């Protein structure tokens, strides 16, 4: 109270004599402000804070333990750990180049499919869907995000793979010759007896399945941001004669840009770490294999799931190191994503 009136004094200056006199009064000395915390509150504060500390500790331990266990392998391999493609820890030649690139290829394929799907779904739910079925659609998409990944894996392996083979074959035949990622080694389009088995268990199929798994999450984040686009500006655009798409592209999309980028990155983080679906579908190879239509690919998580069981102590250490690499990459991607989404929610990107 007292400091405030002093500030007021400097601002108003001599104009107001009476306030000056009041401030000079000897009885009004500055009070010391303090928060009195009684014992239960202090205990509660301590408990709550320790809860937060435990969570952070657990999360730090995840990284720390992987580092400790994987250190031996990283030390033994040296820089080769990053550039070596083969995975044979017991003979000393191993590296994550192949599995890491495989992970990236699968994730990129997944995002290539998931981005338009989730974008369209989010926009449909937030802008086009009839008011009555909107809550139902939101629930459905959220439910799909909760469906276990093993179910997607089963579907991809038994249902989708055979369906995609003709498409892969067509792409390899007509697009492959001038687009290297779609070319397939050992496939001759002019051979009438060529089997489509070279196209099974490919990065492409795994990518599509992972895309379906991440699309609901990505879509749900995008929808939330789209729905926050200010009503006044939407109506302003419509009142100026914009079509619906004009309104969307001039108001909703600029406003939701952060949500689109952040949601996509979050989806990317999820698809980098996906294990079971990839493990079921792909047939593992240990070379960098950028021809996504061809049989064979790999990912870090699939490698761990594949090898952990019959591994020697040193091989386990190598797997831990690979897990650490995956952990760091997903952490960076997720962290970037959540920063972007958080910033877009506060509206600072919505220009």
């Amino acid at each position: 109270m007292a400091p405030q009136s002093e500030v007021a004094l400097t601002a108003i200056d001599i104009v107001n004599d009476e306030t000056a006199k009041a401030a000079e009064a000897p009885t009004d000395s500055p009070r010391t402000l303090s928060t009195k915390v009684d014992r239960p509150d202090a205990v509660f504060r301590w408990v709550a804070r320790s809860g937060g500390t435990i969570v952070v500790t657990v999360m730090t331990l995840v990284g720390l333990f992987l580092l400790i266990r994987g250190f031996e392998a990283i030390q033994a391999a040296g820089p080769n750990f990053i550039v070596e493609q083969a995975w044979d820890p017991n003979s000393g030649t191993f590296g994550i180049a192949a599995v890491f690139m495989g992970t990236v290829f699968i994730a990129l394929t997944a995002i290539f499919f998931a981005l338009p799907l989730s974008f369209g779904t989010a926009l449909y739910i937030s802008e086009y869907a009839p008011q009555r079925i909107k809550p139902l659609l939101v629930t459905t998409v959220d439910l799909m995000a909760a469906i276990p990944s093993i179910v997607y894996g089963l579907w991809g392996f038994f249902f989708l793979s055979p369906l995609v083979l003709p498409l892969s074959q067509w792409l390899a035949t007509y697009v492959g010759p001038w687009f290297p990622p779609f070319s397939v080694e050992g496939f001759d389009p002019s051979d009438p007896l060529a089997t489509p088995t070279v196209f099974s268990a490919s990065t492409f199929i795994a990518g599509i399945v992972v895309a379906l798994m991440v699309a609901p999450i990505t879509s749900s984040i995008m929808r939330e941001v789209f729905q926050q686009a200010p009503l006044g500006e939407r109506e302003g655009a419509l009142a100026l004669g914009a079509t619906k798409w004009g309104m969307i592209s001039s108001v909703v999309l600029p406003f939701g840009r952060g949500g689109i980028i952040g949601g996509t990155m979050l989806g990317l983080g999820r698809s980098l770490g996906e294990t079971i679906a990839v493990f079921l579908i792909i047939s593992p190879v240990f070379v960098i294999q950028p021809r996504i239509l061809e049989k064979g690919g790999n990912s870090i998580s699939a490698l761990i799931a594949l090898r952990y069981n019959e591994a020697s102590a040193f091989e386990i250490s190598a797997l831990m190191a690979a897990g650490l690499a995956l952990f760091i990459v997903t952490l960076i991607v997720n962290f970037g994503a959540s920063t972007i989404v958080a910033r877009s929610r506060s509206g600072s990107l919505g220009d």
Partner: protein
Amino acid sequence: MTDVLNRAEAPTTNEVQDAPAIGPEVTPAKTTWTRDGNEPDAAAPEPRRSTATIRTVDVIRLIGSAMAAVGFTSWLFFFALPLEGALGFVLITYGMFLLLFGILTGFDENRPTVRDRMASVVMHSLAFLLLLALFSVVIYTFGRGLEPLGFINFFTEDMSNAGPLDDLDRGGVLHAVVGTLIMISIALILTIPLGILTAIFLTEYPGRFARFVRTVVEAMTALPSIVAGLFVYAIIVQFGFTRSGFAAACAITVMMLPIVVRSADVVLRLVPSSLKEAARALGASTWRTVWTVTMPTARSGLTTAVILGTARGIGETSPVLLTAGATTFFNFNPFSGPMTSLPLTTFTFVKSPELNFIARGFGTAAVLMVLVVILFLIARAIGGRGPGQLSPRQQRSRSSASRNDDYRFRAKELGIARGTKSSALAPPAPEVPPPAVPPPSAPTDSIDQSTKD
């Protein structure tokens, strides 16, 4: 909200189409909506404008171009080019359909309108495609899982006496159901207090440390589940434990914790600060405010957060794969011996080449999915309301508590106090403040909610 938009949309698109062609200055007589009211037909009744968002001409264009696309693609497939495959047929048909629809709209409309119609069609079909794919995932799994689900032993036995070549009338997955339930219970015992406590810390004690915790939790929400499993596996290796149900539960906890913290944090932040401030103004301490105001207000949201985390935790395979071991026997002790869970059992079943095992795998997946869907629907039923919104039953109990208080206060004013001990600051009955919504609007709110659900 969208109602307003939709209504606004029909006339605006008309304007865009008409504006360059007619223009109010050129031929004012033709338009009924100019401002200077000297038109000859001002007295004539204005024709009612249609505010429908679906235009007949668009529907006709859609049907026409769809039929043309199917016809053209059939011709391509069966006569012109050596193409095959159902998926290819659908893709080419769709491409043709878009092209034809664009051309057809372009005959009558200007560029922005064509773009609008095309965008609308593309968005509708993308959403339809995703939903179709998701439904096909569910239906396919159920369809193939139906066969083993018909055998009662599938739900009552474990797999210990079923060999690889046995028919579906031997063996079941009850051991996996038991394992899943034990694991998720332990995980929940660990997750619920820790997760909600952390969320409370984040909302009640904001500061630099809380911000740091929030950042860490957000970055960990999408922690790859295999890394969580690997972490627990590293501990097992480090300290010489064996794989067990408890280890798997710990791995699931590591995975669920950030999810629960994050969604609980979001829910707690939605509690109106006026409620908390009211409690503080009445002299309540922080923990009393949290316990009697914040938590009850956000109860439905917190429950939802926990249940959604549970649904994710139940379905994860990879952490369990690394830490639980796998077994075909019943194991009720989470601390010793391997244990299995539904997703892990599914995984081991479908890796087998035996058709019966694959069928069992689909059956297990169907059981798992039913479990997840039930959890999810419970979460929706509880958590459909925002903080402070009450179900009709809660509404009734609140208002009866409020009536009691009113009666008590009046009795006190009239000097017929029942007990001498009652103090003004801590009335015993109203543990929870009155609902955030004013009483008259509250019932309609809850009715809306129930019809929506």
